[in-house]
């Protein structure tokens, strides 16, 4: 559920491939046909999608960590059950996406190992800490809200298995955003301290959430290819603007202030935000965000501690298969 536009397309190397096949492929894309796993596709299309879908899957899995932090400390049983269900959904979304990525030819194990080795990225937003309960509300409202903006157009992505996975994800996502906003409404109707907690969470998450849409159009070099291949249907800035326009009235309803004193509404009704600090974004992507090391350490620990389960399950399956063969031979 948490894609991020940090995916850059491979440079188009169709010159090296069969020009006729490449032209036929582009014609299928232009005709809005879906590309399926066994269809011919340019190597760069395969590589771009493998990277984008696997990064998306890693983001779902790492995204369980900041929220999982609050499951045992949720304020009520209702909130706890909802948060647990949401974190389970994130895990499920990760699995749908790994399955979609695998149809391009890499195994899930290879993809997971690349992430654990630090060779594959995940969304930078999960490198920020969840300091208070209000952060759980803000993540649902804003992080899931931004993810939905990004993911709805992906339901029409040219690659069939990715588009189908996104349809499932989007159906489940709406609950996440609503549960987050409900937490915010409750806090904002509560005591002064609770409202201050909600405002503090918004202050800390606002700018990192805007960065989730990726670098500004003027500096993102490869989106032309992704657009031509209909992997990407809207530019980073277009999606970011849509998100801001949808979010400002929601913040106003809560009585919260968006931490951007320079924000103005233009004649067309769009909310114009101030310059984003892209140095911070680059730092977080480079591994220097507040929680990068924690997140990687937690993922590696979970993977290592699960090794005996994988081994035991494989040994059991092998034993059963052997017994069946022996019985069949009798």
């Amino acid at each position, binding site marked *: 559920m948490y894609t991020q536009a940090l995916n850059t397309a491979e440079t188009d190397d169709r010159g090296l491939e069969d020009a006729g096949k490449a032209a036929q492929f582009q014609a299928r894309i232009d005709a809005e046909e879906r590309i399926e796993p066994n269809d011919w596709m340019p190597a760069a299309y395969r590589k771009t999608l493998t990277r984008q879908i696997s990064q998306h899957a890693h983001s779902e899995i790492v995204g369980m960590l900041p929220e999982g932090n609050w499951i045992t400390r949720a304020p009520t049983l209702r909130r706890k059950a909802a948060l647990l269900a949401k974190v389970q959904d994130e895990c*499920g979304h990760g699995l749908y996406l790994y399955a979609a990525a695998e149809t391009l030819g890499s195994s899930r194990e290879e993809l997971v190992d690349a992430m654990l080795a630090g060779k594959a990225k995940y969304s930078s937003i999960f490198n920020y800490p969840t300091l208070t309960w209000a952060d759980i509300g803000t993540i649902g409202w804003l992080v899931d809200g931004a993810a939905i903006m990004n993911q709805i157009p992906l339901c029409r992505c040219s690659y069939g298995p990715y588009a189908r996975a996104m349809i499932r994800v989007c159906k489940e996502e709406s609950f996440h955003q609503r549960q987050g906003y409900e937490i915010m409404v409750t806090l904002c109707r509560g005591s002064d301290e609770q409202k201050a907690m909600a405002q503090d969470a918004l202050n800390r998450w606002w700018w990192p959430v805007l960065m989730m849409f990726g670098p500004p159009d003027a500096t993102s070099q490869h989106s032309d290819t992704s657009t031509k291949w209909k992997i990407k249907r809207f530019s980073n800035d277009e999606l970011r603007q849509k998100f801001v326009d949808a979010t400002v009235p929601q913040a106003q309803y809560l009585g919260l202030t968006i931490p951007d004193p320079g924000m103005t509404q233009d004649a067309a009704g769009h909310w114009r935000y101030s310059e984003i600090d892209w140095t911070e974004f680059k730092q977080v992507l480079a591994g220097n965000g507040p929680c990068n090391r924690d997140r990687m350490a937690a993922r590696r620990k979970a993977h290592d501690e699960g090794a005996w389960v994988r081994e035991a399950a494989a040994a059991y*399956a092998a034993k059963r298969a052997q017994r069946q063969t022996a019985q069949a031979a009798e």
Partner: protein
Amino acid sequence: MATPNTPLWEVFIRSRNGLAHKHVGSLHASDATMALQAARDIYTRRGEGLSIWIVPSAAITASDPAEKGMMFEPAESKIYRHPTFYEVPEEVGHM
């Protein structure tokens, strides 16, 4: 050390009585029992199904999309298999 691969399974779910099982996706599991449980957890968290089938992905034989022209040509040319091919006088009414 690289993580060893776990077998892949295809998941089919019958969502309501009277409907056919429909392919919903795939998953990894070391055996059929675990695949069935994982399918329940991954694909039916909101009551999406009454019945689940799981099939080892390796057991599926698929047609080659590159050959689809030749594969489906026999049906393409037989428009007389469709009811609209036949003319029935209007006075006869709906048939």
